[in-house]
Structure formats: structure tokens, C-alpha cells
């Protein structure tokens, strides 16, 4: 005898619970109404980002619930010396019968920041997947066409040491400047943009490491570990290393982002990538390294610098604290520009190492300085020729 057990399944039912099935109060209210979009219509990016991280100054009526040992909770505004309008207003005090309402949204100028790259889940995975796919293909095509066989000994040394050592800059800044800063800004718009920046740097570090691995497999006497010694012992690298480490030691999150993306990257990162590697490689028969390094250059120039500028422009044009912010940013320039220029100069010996020389170091540095000056003036800040040529 056989018996069939009836499978137990939930039964679908027709509920007609779709939009438009009935008219009633709110039946057509189909946009998020707790924030004001930057443009006329809310963007998809804004909808998934704005107000996820709360602020007791407008909503959050019961306040932060868990604090550090000093009693401060959430995202203290004092974690940076910069201020956005509204920062000096006190947090509304709630107590018996106070009600819960705070200031109107947004209680602070910080909430006006929007990442011009509109980074969220969908965009960040799409972008980075495209980069890694493209890089993998480039390197693979080069491998198949035996492109590395054209490299001369000096260039092999150069790539294994100097291109290799840059991975450590990326990795260190990705983790200890950017990932670290994602805990510290007062809005979700800031912290998400910063965490995406972090992933760009960590990805670039890995791109270089894996490229280095391929080269050690493809080129007979390519020393895949030479980058380690270069990073720790080569005197030409110690200025860069010292500066990168100093960036990870900054407490103020705005200063950390500013010093890294506004000063260090244009004066050292772009100097190294655009004015050394990209220029020297073709002359030495290398058409692959520029594509690897170029991906990172694109990350910075087209995306990371873009959000950074939007973030600081808002602060230098703040309706309440523009002057306050500018004077602090000027002091950060005064502090970090000399350090970065010193590090750039320590880097100079690299320019004479390849057989086919890149354009002169001084020319590269001049171009880096010119671009840097423009970034600075776009932000409403000033840097004098004298400061740049000390």
C-alpha cells in the first residue's frame, strides 16, 4: 500500500494590496518625507542614504542611548574642529513633558552634504567590479602576448621595488585613514563616501600586490618580495612612509581626509603615478603598469577628490562658519604642505633610475603643484608661490 503525504505549503491569496487600489489619506504619498532633497526630486542615492544615521538635534527624541565612558554617544561634533551651521546650537533638552521635537530638519549644515558620486551599494560594486575585471583582462592579455619580455633589467627592478612599494601606501591609508574615519563623521552621507574611498585604496593595494604576483610568475628573475625592503629601508621612500604614517596618526577626521586627499594625493600620489610611472613606463617598453596604476589614478581624480571637494566646499562656504573653517583649513595647509613637499623631494632619486628617463622631476613636481594650487583655490583657500617653493 502506498500513501501520498500532502505537502504543506502556504496558499497564495489575492489581496489586492498594490499601490493605487484605493484612495485614502496618504495613498499617493510615495516619497520619503523626512528630508529635503538637494534638487527638485529626491535621487535614488539620497533615498537610500539620508538620515540613516540619526541626529538628536532634529529627530531622535529620546537621544543617544549608549555612550562611551565619558557619557558621549553617537557621533560627537567635536570629533573635528570644523563646524557647519547650527553646530553651536545646543542639543535640545528633553525631560518630563518636554515633547520630543528638536530643530527643523536639517538641524545642522552637515546634513546638506551629498556625495556627487552618489555612491551606494549598487554603484560601488558595479564600479569596482568593472575595474578589477578590466585590470585582470589587461594583465592577462599582456601575459599572453609576452609583453613583459621586452622589459629591461633596470625597469624590472624599478617595477618590483617602486611600483610594488606603493601598495603599502594604499593599504595603510585605506585602513587607518579612511576606514578609520568612517566611524567619525556626523552624517551617513559623509561616512558612506569615506568608506567607499577606503575600499578604493584597499582595492588598489591588492591590485598592485596581485600584479606583483603575476610578474613574479612571468618574469624569471622578478623579485616578488623586493617591495617589502624598499618600503622599509630605501631612503628615497622614507619621506613618503613617514608622511603616510603621520596621516594615520591624525585624530581630527576632517583633517585626516583633507591632508590625505587635498594635499598628500595631489603632491605625492599624483606625482608618483602620473608624473613618474605613467611617463616612464612607455619609454621602457611597459604598456601594462600604466593601466594598473591608471585605475587608481582614476579613482582618485574622478571620484575621491570629487566628493572631497564637495565636502570641503560646503564648509568653506558655510553660512555661519566659513571664516572659522577657512582659518583652520589654512592652518592644516601650513602644517601639511611642507611635510608633503619634503616627502616629494625625498622621492626624487626614483626619477633617475629607469634607463629611459621620464620628464624631469622638477617639471613633474611643478605640474603637481599647479594642479594642487587650483584645488586649493577652488575650495576658497589660498596657497602662495612662496609656500610652495620653500
Amino acid at each position, binding site marked *: 500500500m502506498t500513501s501520498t503525504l500532502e505537502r504543506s505549503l*502556504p496558499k497564495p491569496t489575492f*489581496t489586492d494590496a498594490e499601490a493605487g487600489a484605493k484612495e485614502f489619506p496618504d495613498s499617493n504619498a510615495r516619497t*520619503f518625507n523626512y528630508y529635503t532633497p538637494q534638487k527638485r526630486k529626491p535621487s535614488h542615492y539620497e533615498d537610500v542614504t539620508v538620515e540613516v544615521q540619526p541626529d538628536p538635534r532634529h529627530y531622535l527624541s529620546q537621544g543617544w*542611548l549608549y555612550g562611551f*565612558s565619558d557619557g558621549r554617544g553617537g557621533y560627537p561634533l567635536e570629533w573635528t574642529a570644523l563646524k557647519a551651521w547650527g553646530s553651536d546650537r545646543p542639543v535640545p533638552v528633553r525631560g518630563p513633558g518636554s515633547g520630543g521635537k528638536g530643530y527643523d530638519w536639517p538641524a545642522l549644515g552637515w546634513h546638506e552634504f551629498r556625495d556627487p558620486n552618489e555612491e551606494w551599494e*549598487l554603484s560601488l560594486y558595479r564600479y569596482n567590479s568593472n575595474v578589477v575585471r578590466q585590470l585582470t583582462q589587461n594583465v592577462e592579455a599582456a601575459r599572453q602576448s609576452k609583453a613583459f619580455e621586452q622589459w629591461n633589467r633596470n625597469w624590472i627592478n624599478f617595477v618590483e621595488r617602486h611600483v610594488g612599494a606603493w601598495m603599502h601606501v594604499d593599504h595603510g591609508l585605506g585602513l587607518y585613514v579612511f576606514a578609520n574615519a568612517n566611524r567619525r563623521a556626523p552624517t551617513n552621507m559623509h561616512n558612506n563616501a569615506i568608506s567607499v574611498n577606503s575600499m578604493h585604496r584597499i582595492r588598489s593595494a591588492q591590485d598592485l600586490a596581485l600584479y606583483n604576483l603575476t610578474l613574479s610568475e612571468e618574469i624569471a628573475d622578478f623579485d616578488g618580495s623586493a617591495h617589502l625592503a624598499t618600503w622599509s629601508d630605501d631612503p628615497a621612500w622614507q619621506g613618503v612612509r613617514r608622511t603616510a*604614517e603621520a596621516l594615520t596618526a591624525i585624530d581630527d577626521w576632517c583633517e585626516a581626509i583633507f591632508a590625505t586627499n587635498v594635499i598628500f594625493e595631489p603632491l605625492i600620489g599624483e606625482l608618483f603615478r602620473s608624473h613618474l610611472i605613467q611617463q616612464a613606463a612607455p619609454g621602457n617598453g611597459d604598456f601594462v603598469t600604466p593601466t594598473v596604476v591608471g585605475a587608481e589614478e582614476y579613482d582618485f581624480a574622478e571620484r575621491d577628490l570629487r566628493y572631497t571637494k564637495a565636502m570641503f566646499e560646503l564648509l568653506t562656504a558655510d553660512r555661519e562658519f566659513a571664516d572659522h573653517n577657512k582659518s583652520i583649513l589654512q592652518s592644516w595647509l601650513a602644517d601639511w604642505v611642507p611635510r608633503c613637499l619634503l616627502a616629494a623631494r625625498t622621492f626624487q632619486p626614483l626619477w633617475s633610475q629607469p634607463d629611459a628617463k621620464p620628464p624631469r622631476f622638477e617639471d613633474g613636481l611643478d605640474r603637481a603643484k599647479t594642479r594642487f594650487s587650483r584645488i586649493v583655490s577652488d575650495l576658497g583657500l589660498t596657497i602662495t608661490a612662496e609656500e610652495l617653493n620653500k
Partner: protein
Amino acid sequence: MSRQSMAKAHQKIQELSWEPMYHQPVSQYGTDYTFQKAKKKDPLKQVLRSYFPMQEEKDHRVYGASDGAIRGNMFRQVQERWLEWQKLFLSIIPLPEISAARAMPLLFRNVPNPELHNGQAIQMIDEVRHSTIQQNLKRLYMQNYIDPAGFNSSLRDFQNDYCGTIGRQFAEGFITGDAITAASIYLTIVAETAFTNTLFVAMPAEAAANGDYLLPTVFHSVQSDESRHISNGYATLLMALSDENNHQLLERDLRYAWWNNHRVVDAAIGTFIEYGTKDRRKDRESYAEMWRRWIYDDYYRSYLVPLEKYGLVIPHDLIEEAWNQIWNKGYVHEVAQFFATGWLANYWRIDPMTDKDFEWFEYKYPGWYDRYGKWWENYNRLSVANGHNPIVFEDVDYQYPHRCWTCMVPCLVREDMVMDEVDGQVRTYCHEACRWTDKVAFRPTYQGRETPNMGQLIGSREWETLYHGWNWADVVSDMGFVRDDGNTLVAQPHLNLDPKKMWTLDHLRRCPPLASPNVLLNEMTPEERTAFHSNYVRGGPAGRYAPAEV
């Protein structure tokens, strides 16, 4: 990438970490734990070259399913009873996700093994993913589900509402206080390892049974990242265990984190699964059955107990007590009843229970009807405005509860309520374990040991205090839970969308003012308070007043 080249690639990226020679990275978060530096393996073994395309592929599936759901008119068959509770759940959950991202740097300086930091950074970006993918799901519900109210005001609602505040612990607990207590024990060892299964696996199954297959698509995709995070946590836990000095703190933190997660997550998810469903097949698992399987067996027996041999002191008593609460003391039923009692303070609609529901509850939880049946019949009777007030003001033998100062869920299992004077204020707690958390655990010393990095419980933890003496119409307006006609409430104690059947501010205006139990308690004389307490603990179940003393 082939497996072999993956392994080589992973090996290669180990070369990336380095020790500083000139400047130490900034140290911003303290801990009372100590860690020995030791060479460690990155437990995540994730290379971004394969990670990004893998996540992108997962996204394709999720967004493909979303398009399909809309084209296939999924919303013609979703149960409103279910989707209404998603107004609460999806208002809460993006914050815990993003807080988990923010928590990762708390570990950098405190766990001095750079090999682990790579995994923590990947977890960070995973969590950004979870937060925005969930916001996106909510947006899709708002655009396509019949009643967008409560979705459209989601994050303001969540931040102003007492239920949102309860849920917020599951986020703020990750990012403040002692760095290891927060980002390791509370977040990864307890919240992720124990409770994400009920959140992201049990709940989606229930969603599907209610005609919603988008929630499962999104949440299974989220859950597929979770095992990596659990490995992160495990690696840190083993390192903490290797130093004897940490054992006392681990014991403290496991007790606090376990109990708080139980109080918060079981309250919310238990209610969604038991009271938010229309699926009353007798063979579908109840929340208690799922809990027994996912949490008791898989987490407690298979994950925690084996750690005992490394010196971990496991809170066996609190694990048994959590089960006791769920199985014998009706914790989930008490919470659901309270949510329904206070429907007017919220931003979603709560469907009355029917005979079919009663039958299922009685089958799964024998004795349920005797305890809760009458009250739900009253809820049903009072659901459409008809000259009476909302149920909380009507005579249905329900004593409005005091709130637990620690977990902020009310003291619903009346017999367990504990009262104490802490920091100059008389406070009520839902259970001794919550009193201990406030008075003993979250303090700068613990069992005679200095714990200067331990966090604090802060904030206006009793919601009712804020509105003490207010008219209810003003309370709801102040929170912003009003629809676009300026009068109809977002919340309703039924699912009827006929505007004539819906409750409005006018109905609330004639109700008695809101009174804060805690403010009143602190106004009492010590004798009155003692009498109040001994009466309160004789009350219940189902919120019943204590029987008159003979």
C-alpha cells in the same frame, strides 16, 4: 579565479600589512581587554578581485528579482498584516547595519593584528551594502504597496518612536563604550552569530508565506555575507580568550549582550513572525520552535558550549531563562499585546487576530487562549472607532506597564519586575538581568576591578517621560505620525483603509492625557512605592491587574 590562484592571491595580499616605524595610528577607542600581539591568519580570506564581482552578481539577482516582483504584480498577493510590520522592521534595520560598518575601526588599534584588519574593512563595506539594499527595499514597498504611510516617513518615525528606540540598542551597542564589548562581543559574537539567523533566515521564510518574496531575496543575500563576519568575530574571541585577564570581562559582556539581544530581538522578530503572519498551517514552525533550533541548538549548544574548554564562562542560566521567558512566560505574546495596546503611538497598522489565529496559537502554545484570547477579542471589538476610545483607555483588564530602564521594553512579565534606585532615580527593570546590566555591568568598576572604558547607558530612556501630561493628539502630531490630510493617523488598529473607518487626531483629542509611569513612581513616597511594587508583581499574565488581596 581558480581555487589555486585564489589561494595564492590570498597568500600574496598578506604582504600588504606593515608595522609603523615613525608614527602610531591614532588610538580613539578604549578597551579594558588586553590583547597579545601574535601572528594571525586573516580569517576572511577575501580578495577584492573576486569579492567585488561576487557581490555585483548577488546584486544582479536581487535587482532582477525586484523587477520581476513588480512586473508580476507581487503586491496583489502580499498580506497587509505582514507588510505593516515591515514598516517597523525596515525602519529599524538599516541603522544596525550601518552601525556595524562604523564599528569596525573600534577594533583596529585594540586588536593589534593587522592580518585581521583586512577582514574588518571588508565587513565594513558589506554592512554599507546591507544598509542601502534594505533602504532600497523599503523604498520599493513605499512605491508599490497599497499603503505607503509609515514607509514614507520611516526614518523620522523610527527615530521618534519608542519601538524604534528599543531597536536602536541593536545599533548603538555596536559603536560605543568599551571597544571590544561593543564591536566584538555585542556585535559579532552575539548579535551576528546568534540572532541574525532569526532575523535574516526565519523572517524571510515567513515573508514568503505571506506573498512577499522580495524580502527573502534581499535578506538571504544579506545573510550570505554573515558567515564571513562570524569568522571575524570568532578570530577576535579566541585571541581575547588567550589572555586570562579577559575572562572576567568576557563573562560580563556575554551576559549583558546575550540578555539584551534576547530582550530586543525576540520582542521584535517574535512579534513579526507570530502576529504578522496569515500562515496558520499547524506544521509551520512557531517562533519558539525556530528559536529552539537556531538559537538554542545551533548557537548555544554548537557554538558557545565548545568554547567552554578555552575558559569562556557561558551564561547557561540566562540562556535557559530566555527560553523560559519565551516558552513558559509568554514573552513574545506579552510584547505583541503591548504593541497592540499602544497602537496609537506607532506608525503601522495592526490587524486584529481572528478565530483562525486563536486556534493556531492554542495549538502551538497550549493555554494561550485563556491568557490572551479575551484581550484580543476586545481588541477586535474596539478596532473601529465607534464612540469609544482606543483600547488602552478602555476597561479590558490591562494595566499599562512600567518600562525597563535598560532594555526599554516594558516590564511585561509582571512577576519579574525589579525596582531599584540608581543614579538618584527610582527605576523599574523587566528582569533582574536588566537591573544588573544598568547597576553593575555598565559601571567604571566591575567586581572590584577598574573598568574605565566601559560605556554608559544614557538618554531619555523612558519614552513616556517626554510626553508626561500631554494630550494624545499633540503627542502623535509631535512625533509626526499623521497622514497627509493632517488628521488621519498613520497607525490604525485594523487594516480597513476606508477613511470613515480610520482613527484621527480628533478621536485622540478627547482621550485622557498621557502619564509617565516613571515620573509618577518617583513622585511616590517610599512606602507607596513598595506597595506599588508588590502589587505590580502579582499582576499578569496578559497585563491583568493583580487580584484584590483577601
